[in-house]
């Protein structure tokens, strides 16, 4: 006759669900109540060879609390400390009795020596959200008449489908920025700085509509607010570009040619996306299910994400000289060696640092919009600048006053 799990506890039929430690039988295990869905943790605390008895403590846990304990969110000791009245049972399997039976006693508190050590944890990946099924994404896109995508992160140390909001925010921002920048390239309207046209960004604006395991899969769909139909060609092209770029990032040999086909804006936003994945300790997978083209996916593991980031960071900036025949010197700081000039013909403003030669030349120059100069400026364009850093940096090489 089996005394494990005990039929005498008031939770209906119980089944042993997992065994965490066994030694000639289960000693530390979890049982599930088939009726209530909750779990009990069972710990063997004593074995008496004279009495022929084995004693266990059973701790009843809600499903949510069990997930926390199983994933290491709370320690085993904490689980007992947090127990409510009636949650703890002492079950002594008496094998001398005929037939053998369990003697059950409800405990208000567990004897201190029976408790697990304060630093004893389980540390198991624990599913707390429905599983992601990539094959269903395309079908869902067709049924909802909406392009969908899924972004899969697998942060280290994550045992449950959880991600810090700040980390998620960074990844989500850089993903949307990458899509925006790609969409304008798809549209043939590449820009280096300034705002991207709203009519482009609104077409590829994504909304979060679900969460899946494991470990963390964000389901995204094209935002349909304010529009009846999405621009399927633009969306499909943009999502396809993202998958292709992620796919290429598995090797420097394929990544750099792909990136060189893009302007610095896409390169910078993609670098930021990889950077955010690295900071999350995660790999990166994207699944795209556009309405009008086949579903595609690309996956980078953590090492590949780190390696791709290093590849991008190692590319030297492009340097070129730019001659501006007539500009006004609108700001000059001789202590910090900085300048700003205004080209009224092109409507462009350039600011940066002075070269040692230019520091000499600017002595006595008049700041304002009534004196004009011809200047030579070195333009340094980072291959892929991260968020907040200027894409182009300027250095004044020469400045000459124009007559009159």
């Amino acid at each position, binding site marked *: 006759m*089996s*005394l*494990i799990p005990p039929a005498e506890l008031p939770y209906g039929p119980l089944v042993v669900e*997992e*065994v*965490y*430690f*066994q*030694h*000639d*039988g289960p*000693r*530390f295990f979890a049982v599930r109540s088939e009726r209530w869905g909750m779990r009990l943790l069972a*710990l*063997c*605390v*004593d*074995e008496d*060879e004279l009495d*022929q*008895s*084995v004693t266990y403590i059973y701790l009843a846990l809600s499903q949510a609390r069990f997930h926390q304990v199983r994933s290491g969110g709370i320690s*085993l000791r904490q689980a007992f400390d947090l127990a409510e009245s009636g949650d703890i049972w002492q079950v002594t*399997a008496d*094998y*001398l009795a005929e037939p053998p039976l369990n003697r059950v006693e409800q405990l208000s508190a567990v004897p201190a*020596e*029976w408790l*697990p*050590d304060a*630093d*004893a944890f*389980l*540390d*198991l990946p624990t599913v707390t959200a429905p599983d992601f099924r990539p094959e269903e994404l395309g079908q869902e896109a067709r049924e909802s008449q909406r392009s969908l995508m899924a972004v899969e992160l697998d942060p280290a140390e994550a045992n449950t489908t959880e991600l810090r909001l700040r980390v998620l925010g960074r990844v989500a921002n850089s993903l949307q920025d990458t899509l925006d920048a790609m969409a304008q390239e798809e549209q043939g309207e590449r820009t280096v700085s300034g705002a991207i046209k709203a009519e482009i960004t609104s077409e590829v604006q994504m909304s979060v509509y679900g969460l899946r395991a494991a470990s963390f899969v964000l389901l995204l769909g094209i935002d349909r607010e304010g529009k009846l139909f999405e621009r399927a060609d633009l969306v499909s092209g943009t999502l396809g570009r993202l998958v292709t770029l992620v796919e290429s990032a598995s090797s420097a040999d394929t990544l750099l040619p792909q990136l060189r086909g893009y302007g610095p804006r896409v390169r910078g936003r993609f670098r930021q996306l990889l950077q955010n994945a690295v900071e999350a300790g995660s790999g990166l997978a994207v699944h795209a299910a556009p309405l009008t083209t086949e579903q595609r996916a690309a996956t980078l593991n953590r090492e590949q994400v780190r390696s791709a980031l290093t590849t991008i960071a190692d590319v030297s900036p492009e340097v070129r000289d730019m001659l501006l025949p007539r500009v006004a010197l609108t700001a000059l700081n001789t202590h910090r060696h900085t300048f700003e000039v205004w080209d009224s013909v092109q409507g462009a403003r350039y600011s940066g640092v002075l070269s040692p030669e230019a520091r000499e030349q600017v002595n006595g120059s008049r700041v304002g919009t009534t004196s004009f100069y011809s200047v030579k400026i070195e333009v340094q364009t980072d291959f892929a600048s991260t968020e907040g850093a200027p894409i182009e940096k300027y250095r004044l090489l020469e400045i000459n006053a124009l007559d009159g």
Partner: protein
Amino acid sequence: MPAQVITGCTVLAVSIGGLPAHCPPSGHVEAEGTFYRFSASSLAVGDRVPVGQWGLPVNNRMSEAFEQWNDCDGYAHSVFASLEPLVSARKVLHWAKKRSICKLELVPGMGRVHESPSDVGPEHYDWYPDPLDRVPTAVVVEARP
């Protein structure tokens, strides 16, 4: 009843040929190497584990496999490929805190082992001794804390 096992501390007289069908489970290999398991609380480091502690679960009244003649689990001892799972178990289980840990060397001819990991670790094996009353030389390496 595929095996006739005489219960008691030391008198076991069944060969491995008496195991139930499909026992050990597929994937078993020759028992060979160093293994660890819990032993009695009274033993000190260097003590040999007495013969009486090697009763199989099928003979142990306090086992779920007691007299379950067709249950393969009844014919194996739990052994671990490293000390670590046993040390970890002591952090969780008062039962384990009250026990010493012994080391045993298994060599070809002593039976079969089958890897049977728990849900938290790969180190657990079932050792099916051959003959079933085989008693290994096991020496305590860690006394009860």
